[in-house]
């Protein structure tokens, strides 16, 4: 029998973060009549159906034409609309990079690029769909805000909050049912890191689904007498530099955890921040320059070294390097 861990955050229910998006999208649609939706033949997968039903005149099914969708979204902003585009993360970024770059980011258009099925936890569809480079591509673009919430509640809150932010946003979420461990009524402040657990020996900076893995890792490390500070980086860009530096000033080492390539991800931007200001040892949890593959989400997180166990090892290594 597996030992029950005394995690600082717990859950009673699991739900997919894409449902958090879908529910948040309906709610923000009710609050703000300028919000409009577009989807490229994935309304069911993106959970955009409730909004479509409620606001048929503010929703456009564009078929399987993602490049076209990005252009339409840019155009809709010119009439004062706040378009939310919906497709899988791969087809929201790599597929349409130049369309986003020119018509949205460079042109400073108020488009919310909402991307589901990001990362390895997409599972069985395999590497063609499992994008692990999207955060890098999006955060390289000037003017782009990049957000990767951790559970259903945070995704819902983020979906609502981005409508009030003027400018292009990349909102990344996923497919699998995942623990809901953050509060339903949380405020969501773009660009403000959330210190979830205070500690003194090592800081774990985690984003997206891996925040839960980091919560589990903290409990394991605490049992071994290691004090972990856990910071939830839901906004990867702009990074909350002050929060990052304040934490490592105390702990003296860092672990970054994300469902993404090392190249271009959260680890990269944290490393840049540390090197420029206050170099300390840093260990990376992420995918090491390879494509993903088909499999169950948990199996893939294990095979590619992204689960709590790996975070525990990385934390010990970072501490040893101090």
């Amino acid at each position, binding site marked *: 029998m597996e030992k029950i861990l005394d995690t600082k955050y717990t859950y009673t229910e699991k739900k997919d973060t894409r449902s958090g998006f879908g529910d948040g999208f309906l709610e923000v649609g009710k609050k703000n009549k300028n919000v409009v939706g577009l989807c490229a033949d994935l309304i069911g997968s993106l959970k955009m159906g409730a909004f479509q039903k409620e606001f048929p005149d503010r929703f456009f099914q564009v078929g*399987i034409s993602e490049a076209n969708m990005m252009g339409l979204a840019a155009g809709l902003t010119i009439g004062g609309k706040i378009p939310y585009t919906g497709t899988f993360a791969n087809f929201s970024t790599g*597929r349409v990079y130049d369309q986003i770059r020119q018509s949205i980011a460079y042109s400073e258009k108020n488009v919310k690029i909402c991307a589901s099925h990001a990362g390895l936890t997409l599972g069985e*569809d395999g*590497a*063609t*769909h499992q994008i692990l480079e999207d955060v890098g591509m999006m955060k390289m673009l000037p003017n782009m805000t990049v957000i990767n919430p951790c559970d259903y509640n945070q995704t819902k809150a983020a979906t609502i909050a981005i409508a009030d932010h003027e400018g292009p946003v990349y909102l990344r979420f996923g497919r699998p049912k995942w623990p809901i461990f953050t509060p339903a009524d949380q405020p969501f402040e773009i660009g403000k890191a959330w210190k979830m657990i205070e500690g003194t020996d090592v800081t774990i900076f985690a984003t997206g689904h891996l925040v839960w893995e980091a919560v589990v890792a903290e409990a394991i490390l605490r049992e071994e007498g290691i004090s972990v500070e856990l910071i939830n980086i839901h906004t990867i860009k702009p990074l909350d530099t002050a929060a990052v530096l304040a934490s490592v000033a105390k702990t003296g080492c860092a672990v970054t955890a994300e469902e993404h390539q090392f190249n271009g991800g959260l680890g990269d931007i944290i490393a840049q921040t540390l090197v420029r200001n206050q170099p300390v040892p840093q260990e990376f949890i992420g995918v090491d320059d390879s494509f993903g*593959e088909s499999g*169950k989400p948990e199996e893939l997180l294990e*095979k590619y070294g992204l689960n709590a166990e790996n975070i525990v090892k990385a934390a010990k290594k970072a501490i040893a390097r101090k």
Partner: protein
Amino acid sequence: MEKHSTEQLNAVCSQVRRDILRMVHACQSGHPGASLGCTEFFVALYFDQMKHDSSFNPDGKGEDLFFLSNGHISPVWYSVLSRSGYFDTEELKTFRKINSRLQGHPATEEGLPGIRVASGSLGQGLSVAIGAALAKKINGDDRLVYALMGDGEQQEGQIWEAAMCAPHHKVDNLIASIDVNGQQIDGPTKEIMNLLDLKAKWEAFGWEVIVTENGNEITQVIKSLEKAKSLLGNGKPVLNLLHTDMGYGVDFMVGTHKWHGVAPNDEQLENALGQLEETLGDY
């Protein structure tokens, strides 16, 4: 290659449909709908039409080549590849499971025999097929290139870039087919993004267009592909509008988008297998 009788080809189709259903059931994911719908087409290609070598040479010199652009219908391709000798049918068990060569969408990285380029992100396969057809011309290789696309997939802009390009470069060693099943993920193509007159569109782009009225009848599929071949060599590529029924062969799956990407449960599998004779032995 010895010619198979219609009865033999239909027997293969029945077994391939069993394989498709058992594969998606085992991993509870994947795309049975258009896999079932395109079974006759794949069997016609690999068991009747194409000159191909199951010992598999990636560059395919001296062979006919096939490219699957709508990569989500990998189950039918994997089944047909294994049933025609590319790899052991036992390996179908590993479909979509971790450490498998049978990825959710076709991939080359794990080295599965029969696959020459990854697909899954829609809209890209026809361009690759045109490139391969051009390479054959440069090499003086007179074998043909085949490609399959989905009808929903026609909504991707890249398809039309490719459509314009092939006649311009006189790629007349290419037969591209579209699986016209009238369905895509969110519903009927007419409601999602109406394709209107595909025949007129492809003709306007400079292709010879033929229509296969019933792509679930193997003799018709073969007749169409024969006709397509007879039209080649005259400076134009051929486009085959292959009308199929999504989910064909299983009464409760047929003709709806609902089974585009949903796996049957235990009961549904049993019901479905009861409708399809085991002809070559289940893996």
